[in-house]
């Protein structure tokens, strides 16, 4: 399929003015909150692992971007490696207060886009992702038919899940490739569909016709591949709204959710394509139903848990205010941030509402959550490091005395469990929907 929509995806050169707004003060290198009491924590997975200033936080990445733009830095294998050794978690962005703050992940990804357009990126292991996207419309090299394997128990139990291409439904459950193809993460769609069925929601899935949201392609700099799948999805969402009555898209995947909410809006046709459709994360939907009294907990889970905020449902959903025309502060000034869409309280509220659950918090949470290490293409490109970083997060969870760690992202689900295995920890990461499914 040819790309046909107009997209507002910046090149590195277009971001040059923002790049020069960085003072190199290094505020981004560690997380800090005033308090009292003051709170400090490491925030940059790449900085923790690799240490050199260039590898660390936005200060380092901005240095790389400057070096590219001023012609001092040319592509080498190790330079590329350094650019891709970043989880694009936004932890550094959360510390920054300068005018380039809203654009920090964009600048990192723009370097990757430049690497891809120059024919040198992404990293070899990541090329499998984009090739797989071209061949299979998913990053897991999974044949289409495998996409519905997780639904077999439902068929067997004579509770088949509606194929939205054939039957209309108000809710499209957009499963996502990780939940569908990544075996350890399949519990996420299974629990989601089970809950929806128990609640009697009118929902359907795309089944074998679902294609990747494009998030991973975007994160590793392959904007063309992202646009291809994103346009196909936007057109499909529009058609489903027109023809099948879909008015809500639900995602249990933080990556898909972030992509549809924040990357798809870069399409000029976004408003037209998404008119009449709202996009929600599963826990948001369930929380609404809980508050309306439609979701009731009937069981009890005597568990002490801690909650891991995924980057993509947390700080990546920040809405930044930029003074574009200089009427408020000055042209291009970063004015403020709205965290209203960040899913910090909703999952915690749901956890606390489950009878028997005791929520205990880790040191680094909410906007200063420490990334699991799997984002930004790192899980594919640098699996060992991703798992090693996840081990650090698991250890942080273990220090709370919790029995389990809970999250709302299949990527975090897979990676944190890999991290637990790596250090032979009993700590298991479960998705919030997996817990909810047990008690309704």
């Amino acid at each position: 399929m040819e790309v046909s929509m107009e997209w507002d995806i910046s090149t590195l050169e277009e971001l040059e003015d923002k790049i020069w707004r960085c003072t190199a003060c290094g505020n981004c290198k560690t997380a800090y909150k005033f308090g009292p009491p003051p709170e400090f924590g490491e925030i940059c997975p790449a900085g923790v692992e690799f240490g050199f200033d260039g590898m660390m936080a936005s200060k380092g990445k901005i240095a790389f971007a400057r070096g590219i733009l001023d012609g001092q830095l040319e592509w080498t294998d190790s330079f590329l490696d350094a650019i891709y050794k970043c989880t694009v978690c936004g932890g550094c962005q959360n510390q920054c207060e300068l005018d380039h703050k809203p654009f920090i992940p964009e600048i990192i990804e723009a370097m990757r886009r430049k690497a891809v357009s120059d024919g040198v990126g992404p990293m070899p292991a990541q090329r499998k992702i984009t090739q797989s996207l071209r061949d299979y419309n998913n990053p897991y090299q999974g044949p289409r038919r495998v996409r519905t394997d997780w639904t077999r128990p439902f068929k067997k139990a004579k509770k088949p899940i509606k194929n939205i291409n054939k039957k209309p439904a108000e809710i499209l459950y957009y499963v996502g490739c990780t939940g569908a193809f990544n075996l350890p993460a399949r519990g996420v769609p299974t629990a989601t569909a089970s809950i929806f069925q128990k609640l009697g929601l009118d929902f359907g899935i795309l089944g074998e016709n679902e294609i990747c949201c494009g998030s991973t392609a975007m994160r590793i700099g392959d904007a063309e591949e992202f646009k291809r799948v994103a346009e196909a999805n936007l057109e499909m969402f529009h058609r489903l709204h027109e023809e099948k009555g879909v008015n809500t898209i639900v995602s249990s995947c933080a990556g898909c959710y972030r992509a549809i909410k924040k990357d798809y809006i870069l399409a000029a046709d976004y408003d037209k394509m998404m008119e009449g459709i709202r996009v929600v994360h599963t826990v948001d939907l369930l929380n609404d139903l809980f508050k309306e009294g439609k979701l009731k907990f009937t069981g009890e889970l005597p568990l002490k848990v801690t909650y891991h905020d995924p980057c993509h449902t947390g700080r990546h959903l920040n809405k930044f205010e930029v003074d574009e025309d200089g009427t408020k502060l000055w042209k291009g000034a970063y004015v403020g941030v709205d965290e209203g869409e960040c899913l910090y309280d909703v999952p915690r509220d749901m956890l606390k509402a489950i009878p028997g659950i005791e929520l205990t918090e880790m040191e680094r949470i909410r906007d200063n959550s420490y990334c699991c290490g799997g984002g930004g293409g790192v899980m594919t490109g640098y699996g060992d490091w991703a798992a090693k970083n996840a081990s650090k997060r698991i250890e942080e969870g273990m220090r709370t005395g919790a029995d389990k760690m809970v999250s709302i992202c299949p990527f975090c689900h897979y990676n944190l469990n890999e991290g637990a295995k790596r250090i032979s920890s009993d700590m298991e990461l479960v998705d919030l929907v997996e817990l909810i499914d047990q008690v309704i």
Partner: protein
Amino acid sequence: MVAEGKNRILEELVSIVGKENATAEKHIRYAYSYDLSFVKPKLPDYVVMATTVEQVQGVMKLANREKIPVVPFTAGSNIGGLCIPERGGILLDLKRMNQIIRIDVESHYAVIEPGVSHAQLAMELYKHNLRWSWPVGPPSASVSSNALCHGIGGLSGRYGLNSEEITSMEVVLPTGELVRVGSCAIQEDSWHSVLPLPQLDGLFKGWLGTSGVVTKMGVRVHPIPPLLKVFTVSTHTLEDMTSYMVNLGNYEICDDLTAVSWWLSQVPIPYPYIPKPDAAPEWYCFGTTFSWTEKEKEAREEIWQNVLEEEQKKGTSIKYADYPEEALKARTQLPSQIVGSTKNYTKMAGGGISWPGTFTPANKWAPVYDKWKEILIDHKLSPSVRATNYRGVHYGMLRAMIPFNKKSPEETENARQAIVECLKVDLDAGGIPYKPPVDFAEEINRRAHPGYLSLLKQVKNMLDPNDIMNSGKFGI
């Protein structure tokens, strides 16, 4: 041959610190080539991260043998270009030596490694209701580097510079030899005091990383009294403000007594220069004072009220002034993400900030400021100036925070010229710059007593016979 030599050096560095901690890759070196200041970027030839004292010694021995410059680096957040490698060489990044070795809650000192950040120390000290003299800088900045370079903080009005709070040090000399100064030199585990021994700590304090690598440091920390009061006034002139600050400073009741010009009280600093509104006072002052009891607080307030009345009777322009809540926080706690930190000073200009930062006696503040104001406005820069009393009225600081657009070489050079011009004015008035870039060092040396320069050279030569430590920084 050159490449072969570089490879050999890199191999040796790798053998000391490990493959993952030594590199000559250009992109890694590039990230250490510039900082916030106007100082021209320069690349190191190698970057090395040490994690142990033995590794630091190994690097120094190699560098000394090969006569390779070494630039010690912790966070690189100073605004004097102090970590820019003037002559290339090895950039020795110490951020991974970041252990808080001890907090002695009875004797009120902490022992830290060079990579310990203000944020890290703040969190740990607070657990014991203790504090440090937090500077107005990024939380990621290094405590020991700030102290070594005569940094200041929110307790400097009471206790003096952060360098005066150093109680002991372990140092690797440029030759690789390990030495100790202060009580830890006599008893390995004793870090409480530099005195009554000869003050050999002076061989490393204020030397801008040119005399050795400090690998452990003892620093005094202080209890946090529960009651804070901030005295805030405004005046139309710095003469009037100086009169008030000297008067109040006599009583030695403030942890911090600082005045800022209207332009510095704006966050961010206006860039380019704009005139202040006519009705707005030109100077604002805050004096922080902490008390253990309400009665003590009332007594301190009484002193302040008396001083204020005395100043008003003199017919000066002094008035009580409000000070924004968030700005007060910035003056009393470790700044982060709020007004008052360096990053916010500069954001309107775009990426660059530097200063004429000086120690200047209070009686010279006003005449120097008047000239600075002329120079800065002439360069279309805001006279965003700060004046602070240290240790009561014993000495004072005068500095201008000058943001500039780093993307533009012309605007950067404009700022540099203005800053150097300001510096000359201050030097001629008897002030002394601190954390000076090389441009400043040359101006200082031009005015220095020959005996001072000779002594400086002799000491430097004794400690660093091959002139490898942060070479070129002193302009000697």
